[in-house]
């Protein structure tokens, strides 16, 4: 089956961010495919390149990137939610004349329409929220 996930919770603040990752791993292990993981609301913090959890806590942005590389997932971050909360790629940083950018490699900023598109082309859309 084709799955897509909506992540609507931030790592370290709500368990839902970690639950989403565990679900994705289980999904792929069973031979399903994941079309897209869409990060929305506070979930966008899961795409931070600067997140530096203690050694005994998982680094979810790193893990998502690795999973995406291995399995060809699409990691899309809602651009409106991310920009207002301070997660920018190089383009947005340039556009708004900000001193740096912090979107983790392997993620891309795009519109909310990518959530709609994911729901259309996937057999199942699962939300992990807080």
């Amino acid at each position, binding site marked *: 089956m084709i799955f897509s996930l909506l992540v609507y919770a931030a790592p370290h603040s709500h368990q839902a961010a970690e639950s989403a990752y*565990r*679900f994705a791993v289980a999904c792929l292990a*069973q031979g*399903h495919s994941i079309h897209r993981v869409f990060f929305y609301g506070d979930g966008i913090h899961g795409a931070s390149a600067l997140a530096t959890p203690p050694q005994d806590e998982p680094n979810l942005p790193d893990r998502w990137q690795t999973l995406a590389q291995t399995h060809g997932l699409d990691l899309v971050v809602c651009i409106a939610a991310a920009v207002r909360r301070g997660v920018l790629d190089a383009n947005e940083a340039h556009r708004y004349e900000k001193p740096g950018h912090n979107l983790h490699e392997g993620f891309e900023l795009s519109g909310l329409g990518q959530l709609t598109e994911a729901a259309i082309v996937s057999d*199942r859309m*699962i939300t992990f929220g807080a």
Partner: protein
Amino acid sequence: MTLHTLNRPPSNAALLADCLRACSSGDTLLLIEDGAYCAQASLPLQLPAGVAACVLAADVAARGLNNRLAPGIKQVDDAGFVQLCCDHARVISWY
């Protein structure tokens, strides 16, 4: 048929009530994260007819609930969660 996931404790009574009233016969309720507290024998769920409830095993263990579960509620692992998604036409997250 719908899979309902719920990740808040029973004290969020309005959420649990909305979830249960949205269930039709044949639906399944999967308790995850803090929703695992809803699986306790001491706070029995008022499930509508034909609705099964299960709970994510890792969340039960994390919270020390292993000896407190209601007998009718099955524990599932992450693979079981994925399978439940496949077995139902849609998934609603209550949070």
